[in-house]
């Protein structure tokens, strides 16, 4: 990325403040979108973006360039967001995104659509998916359907992202149109 090359030149020359001045406009929106896809709350995502950039500012002098700058910044963003999620709900297991939380939500929605069509909307159904699928879907559409952007920001291989998105949207089809669509 051209912008990253400029930033890295400043970093190599020890001009960290100048480098940071380029980091903010280059990354703040993408960091915010990633934070929003994880936290699902605009204000919290903005706070997480602030926190991420402050951490980047503090750590930039120690950035050794072993990872790409974006990879490094997105990793900080994800850690910041996970800390925020842990702060909100300390009992949630992040190693098990398909755990009871999603299953309970799915069960509660599964009984809903037939009785209340208003509830049968995709955003509600999206909430029933495993956390990693929700994040991928939100980020995919926030990033204008870019698989590459989602893979980079979530720190996942491209194939994993494609698979997540495929499973998520297929499941949404099944949930949204239970009488019409069945799994292949």
């Amino acid at each position, binding site marked *: 990325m051209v912008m990253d090359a400029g930033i890295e030149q400043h970093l190599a020359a020890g001009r960290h403040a100048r480098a940071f001045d380029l980091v903010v406009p280059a990354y703040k929106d993408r960091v915010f979108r990633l934070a929003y896809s994880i936290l699902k709350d605009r204000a919290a995502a903005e706070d997480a973006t602030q926190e991420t950039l402050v951490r980047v500012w503090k750590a930039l002098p120690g950035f050794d360039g072993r990872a790409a700058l974006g990879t490094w910044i997105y990793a900080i963003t994800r850690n910041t967001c996970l800390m925020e999620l842990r702060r909100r709900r300390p009992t949630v297991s992040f190693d098990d995104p398909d755990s009871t939380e999603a299953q309970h939500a799915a069960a509660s929605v599964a009984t809903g659509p037939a009785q209340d069509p208003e509830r049968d*909307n*995709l*955003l509600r159904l999206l909430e029933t998916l495993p956390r990693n699928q929700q994040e991928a879907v939100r980020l995919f559409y926030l990033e204008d359907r870019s*698989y590459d952007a989602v893979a980079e920001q979530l720190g996942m291989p491209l194939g994993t992202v494609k698979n997540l998105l495929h499973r998520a*949207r297929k499941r949404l*089809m099944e949930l949204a149109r239970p009488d*019409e669509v069945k799994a*292949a």
Partner: protein
Amino acid sequence: MNDPTLIGPCADYEHDLVDLHDGALPPERARTVRLHVAQCARCRGWAQAFASVDVQLAADLPRPELAANFDARLQERLAALSQPVVRGDLRTAIDFEHDSLVDTLRRGARRSALLGAIGSATAMACVFVAARGLFREAPGALASLPGGTEPWMMFGVAGVAIAIAGLAWSAARNGLPLPGLAR
């Protein structure tokens, strides 16, 4: 059962249909898939259902943006972090932390010393009183003690005296001294 989407797309084409929709399919493969879709009602129906979900998601998902004052807030935070540390303030902060730590340790040590002294004094007093009562009730027992009554009475009195002295010393020194931490 007439709905072609009911049984899903052909298994070989499911992923390709998604990639085709997302524009992620190589041109040659895209052409093949389009030809197949034109001939296959199942895949056509499934692809349409998928497209409708995709369009709805794109339309319904919120697209929040950063607040207008985001940069100003960030600069404020960074400016606060950039404030040079005033040496006097730093010294005061270190002194405060040190004094707090020493005070906490002293309070703990004082409490332990007081409780220990009171405990030992009480225990010795109980032993002393019990011994006196025992010997009064059973004078014959005195004779059976090695060395007679005197050494045992002295032992009890000395124990109580040591406990009381410990208590007094602890109170007089305001707890145990901590020479290594005193400034």
